[in-house]
């Protein structure tokens, strides 16, 4: 409980003071409430005695209610601010973390998961920080204050009521353990059903053909049954202790009242006190009984804090020490790239996906990486852009180790054109400008012309100002690809990396994209991943990879002459490119 508080306050970052204020106000108004109820003791006795003091006590209650209101107002304000400011700050920090963390770490996490941390988990934390915590404090502090005040009335009753609290603690612990188990069981069952549902909808064409649909879809039905069983089990686990605790509170309270009555019968307690005890215990019983349910919120919150913390804990790749003047040491070889004995595995102890790879890419040369899928081509280009650091070896650009460059500096060297193009929900102009934020409109148009996209852009309803979202599907794959090439042309970096940019396109788009690429790669150092070997025949160097190792390198003629793996691939492709579908 205490650690939960601490975690909570910590999670509020620079707004922790707001959180503290909110908690303080919650404590203060709870004290006011507790005292107001405690005043019922003297009030009832004054009433029975016929004393006019009763008005003083009633006045006291009025004052306490006003204080309660004021503190509550303070608490409401503070907790709203916590809710808003903390979610803003946490989202901002997480956003910053996303841009600092190694790309490899980013790629490991699914977009959906990251999304749910930034939206859902942040919400979980702030919803509880902003308000629910106050309710919890109120539930505990107000009765405790009243009980403490009861020491002035009858210490025996106060002691009995206080000792009712400790036994609730183990009960509360079991309850949280059960609730956690319930949450886990239910989450697992839901995840299982989710994957079966996705499988079902994706495979519906096939499943329909084999009549495995609806009630006959065995796998899905089995998963639904498992889900329902898990839910029922979870409910048993979760509700039992929670209701037990509520019953414990109610019966305990009844016992205290009975004890008070016994004291009255034994003439050791006034009647007024019994009446006050009845009112007080009944008033507090409901919130205390519900307390168990509130406690489940803590589990959500702690899980959320954990997930946020896990994301924040990812360390950015370090940038090596510089010379005193802050500039990196270059050897003047410009965009000359070199890999020296580079070995990389995604995780320590995992299989190495790149093993002892060494090669050079001279400035303005064209180098191709070829090999089957999984041979390490893409990993090599990613290592160059430093999505992660290799375990062994070094990668240099112009003689500078990439580990000595900040991400900003490093990215000034590269443009990357992928097979998949991501466009933002913004105008086409802004999508191109992304590559160079200070580009003028003229520069953007020039880049678009060079990338073969000026014509189709001007044909759009609002030209360059057309929102990508508005036309969404109306842009073909080839058009999107050309926009991404326009970005790369605008960025005008010395090194261009191409990752099969044309493989997913239809014939007509392909020609337009190819022309755009021709413009892009002029006078650049080019590193290309290619499946279609005919596209890289003119490469200065072709690196053939297999299982993370270089098996051959050289130009097209040399490799064909060597009659090795490359020649084998080349011949296979030549045979297949003339393959035709025929009905025999």
């Amino acid at each position, binding site marked *: 409980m205490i650690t939960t508080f601490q975690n909570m306050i910590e999670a509020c970052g620079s707004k922790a003071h707001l959180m503290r204020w909110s908690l303080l106000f919650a404590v203060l108004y709870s004290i006011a409430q507790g005292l107001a109820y405690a005043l019922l003791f003297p009030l009832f006795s004054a009433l029975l005695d016929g004393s006019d003091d009763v008005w003083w006590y*009633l006045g006291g209650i009025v004052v306490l209610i006003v204080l309660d209101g004021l503190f509550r107002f303070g608490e409401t304000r503070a907790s709203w601010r916590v809710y808003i400011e903390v979610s803003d700050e946490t989202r901002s920090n997480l956003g910053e973390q996303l841009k600092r963390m190694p*790309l490899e770490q980013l790629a490991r996490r699914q977009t959906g998961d990251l999304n749910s941390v930034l939206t859902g988990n942040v919400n979980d934390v702030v919803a509880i920080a902003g308000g629910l915590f106050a309710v919890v404090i109120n539930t505990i502090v107000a009765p405790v204050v009243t009980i403490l005040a009861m020491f002035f009335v009858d210490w025996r009753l106060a002691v009995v009521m206080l000792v009712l609290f400790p036994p609730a603690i183990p009960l509360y612990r079991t309850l949280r353990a059960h609730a956690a188990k319930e949450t886990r069981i239910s989450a697992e069952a839901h995840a299982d059903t989710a994957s079966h549902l*996705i499988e079902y909808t994706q495979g519906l064409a096939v499943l329909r053909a084999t009549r495995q649909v609806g009630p006959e879809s065995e796998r899905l039905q089995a998963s639904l049954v498992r*889900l329902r069983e898990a839910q029922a089990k979870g409910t048993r686990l979760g509700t039992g202790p929670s209701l037990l605790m509520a019953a414990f509170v109610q019966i305990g309270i009844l016992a205290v009242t009975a004890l008070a009555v016994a004291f009255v019968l034994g003439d050791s307690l006034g009647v007024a006190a019994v009446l006050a005890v009845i009112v007080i215990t009944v008033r507090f019983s409901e919130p205390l009984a519900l307390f168990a349910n509130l406690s489940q919120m803590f589990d959500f919150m702690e899980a959320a804090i954990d997930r946020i913390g896990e994301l924040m804990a990812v360390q950015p790749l370090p940038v090596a020490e510089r010379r005193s003047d802050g500039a990196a040491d270059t050897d003047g070889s410009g965009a000359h790239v070199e890999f020296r004995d580079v070995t990389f595995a995604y995780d320590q102890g995992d299989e190495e996906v790149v093993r002892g790879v060494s090669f050079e890419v001279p400035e303005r040369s064209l180098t191709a990486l070829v090999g089957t899928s999984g041979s390490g081509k893409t990993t090599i280009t990613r290592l160059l852009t430093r999505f992660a650091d290799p375990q062994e070896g070094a990668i240099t650009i112009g003689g500078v180790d990439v580990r000595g460059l900040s991400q*900003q500096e490093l990215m000034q060297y590269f443009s990357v054109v992928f097979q998949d193009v991501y466009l933002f929900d913004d105008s086409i102009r802004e999508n191109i400008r992304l590559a160079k934020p200070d580009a003028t409109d003229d520069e953007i148009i020039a880049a678009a012309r060079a990338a073969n996209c000026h014509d189709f852009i001007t044909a759009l309803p609002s030209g360059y100002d057309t929102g990508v979202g508005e036309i969404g599907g109306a842009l073909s794959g080839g058009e999107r690809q050309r926009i991404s090439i326009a970005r790369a042309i605008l960025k005008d970096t010395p090194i261009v990396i191409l990752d099969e940019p044309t493989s997913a396109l239809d014939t007509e788009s*392909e020609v337009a994209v190819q022309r755009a690429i021709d413009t892009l790669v002029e006078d650049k150092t080019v590193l290309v991943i290619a499946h279609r070997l005919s596209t890289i025949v003119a490469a200065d160097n072709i690196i053939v990879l297999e299982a993370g190792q270089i098996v051959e390198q050289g130009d097209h003629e040399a490799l064909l002459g060597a009659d090795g793996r490359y020649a084998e691939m080349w011949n296979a492709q030549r045979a297949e490119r003339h393959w035709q*579908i025929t*009905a025999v």
Partner: protein
Amino acid sequence: MDVVEERVDAGSEEVNEPGLWTIISPVNREIYTGMAVSLLSLVAWLGSIMLFLPIGREVMDDAPDSGRLWTLFGISLGLVVVSFVCRVLSFRISHLGAFRLEQILRTELTTRLARVPLGYVVNAGSGALKKVVLDDVRALHAFVADSTPLFAKTFAAPFFGAVLMFVLDWRLALISLALLPVGMIGMFFAFRDYDVARRKVDDANERINGVINEYVQGMHVVRTFDDGSGSFERYREALSDATATLREWTEKSQAGAFIARTLFAALPTVLVLLAAGIPMYRNGSLELPILVMFLLLAPTVTESIVPIVWLQQLITNAAASVKRIGQLRAVELMPEVSEGTPPADASVELRNVSFRYEGRDDNALTGVDVVIPEGTVTALVGPSGAGKSTIAQLIPRFWDVDDGQVLVGGVDIKEMTNDQLMSSVAFVFQNPFLLSDTIAANIRLGRPDASDADIVAAAKAAQANDFILEELPDGYDTVVSERGSSLSGGQRQRITIARAILQDSPIIVLDEATAFADPDNEAKIHRALAELARGKTLIVVAHRLSTIVDAHQIVVLDGGRVVESGTHEQLVANGQRYASLWSHFNEAQGWGLRTSADERSQSAPSAAAQTTSTS
């Protein structure tokens, strides 16, 4: 994801949506039993409270009868126990009912999915459909399970409480109830613009979610431009905007929320009752135990406003889900004949077919006529968006045509049962689909009664037997992992081809089934497809024109119309649309990085030269 969800939402605006109560009606029994039991729990609880009246009177008596007191406590204890047992029961009943409802709805929805146009399923996307069937149905759970007990608390508690108060003392009862309208008026003023403000807040939250989504999705990309600072600025700005809206809202609304919280709290009620009750007691018109009873009962009535807000919240939360579930249920089922006419042969014909996707303004196909005789190869070509894939999808009846007819073996496919059609047409998709089950089970999907030997034979024909036995740890019993990461795209495709071979339908539709460019796999996929196509009527959607130059018929589409058809030679000779596609294709095939035009013809002989010489 977002685009896809919109699709699910789109087009059903005017449909008569079944309300929440209709959707949850299959578990009415549980809901009503749950409510009744919860009511019983309430009555028992009120009873235990009421016992404090005789207890109070007895205690105040000059000579309290201890025996009677303990009896009263005993009864009170009994009532508390009854109240809790009923609470547990009500909770269990309503939850189990809610779980049952979830299962019923999911089975119903997935059954419906199997009978709506398959194209709808494909377009909606598995992510969005999963959201409806899993998450939205789950959202109803909260309503069914939690609102049932809340109903008793919200409506029965104040009602019974009020009745009891009037029975006890009508003056105090009126005073306590007078607080309600005062509170209501306060609430009314506080929440006057609540709806508008609430919508603003929802919009702001929506915006935050959208911004986060875009930022996260685009992060991989922006990081290749710079260190992500530009995109972060956009994100930061949008976040600040939305946060400012929220700030503004709370400034306005917190006073209202505060008033509501204060007026409906217990203490002010207690105060008013004391202020009114003390003089009454003093002038002898009110017994003290009755005043105590009021202190116990009245707050129960005023506090019941709070659960009403929760209940409203539950209904609001469920509303969006109910809407999406209703929309899914409103998608029209494809009519299916109960006794169909079997196809006479394996020919396919499209007769004057027009088709428009729901929600689109223009036709995807207009007046398309294609005749495909049994045992021939027909290729559908054209630029993207020309309608190739639409035709391919109309043949296995993923959609129903708006106009015209699709005939298989001379029979309108609407006159065939699903089984008849599905056993005539096999479809090999661009994206291979595998169950996360064993390889054998995945192949067996093609024909559930196939023997193990049949499966191995199909795998062999599909060039898959070797890698299954040599590369997979448990051979045919290897379980394909969820994302199939252990298998390459080409391997997955060969398994789906093995499935189609096992299915042995006389008509095969291939939609860009050769999109996997990995050279090793390419050759094997080609061989597998050749096996599959042996002796079949074949309809191919093709991008790589070299693969279809030998087709019996090439149908060239543009803008949803057939612009040309004929054999490769005829069409090239025509010098029209196909000829231009063909020359583009050859240009693209001959392209190489930094290769000048004359070099091209030497080092990369064009596909055209080769294929025309061999044919």
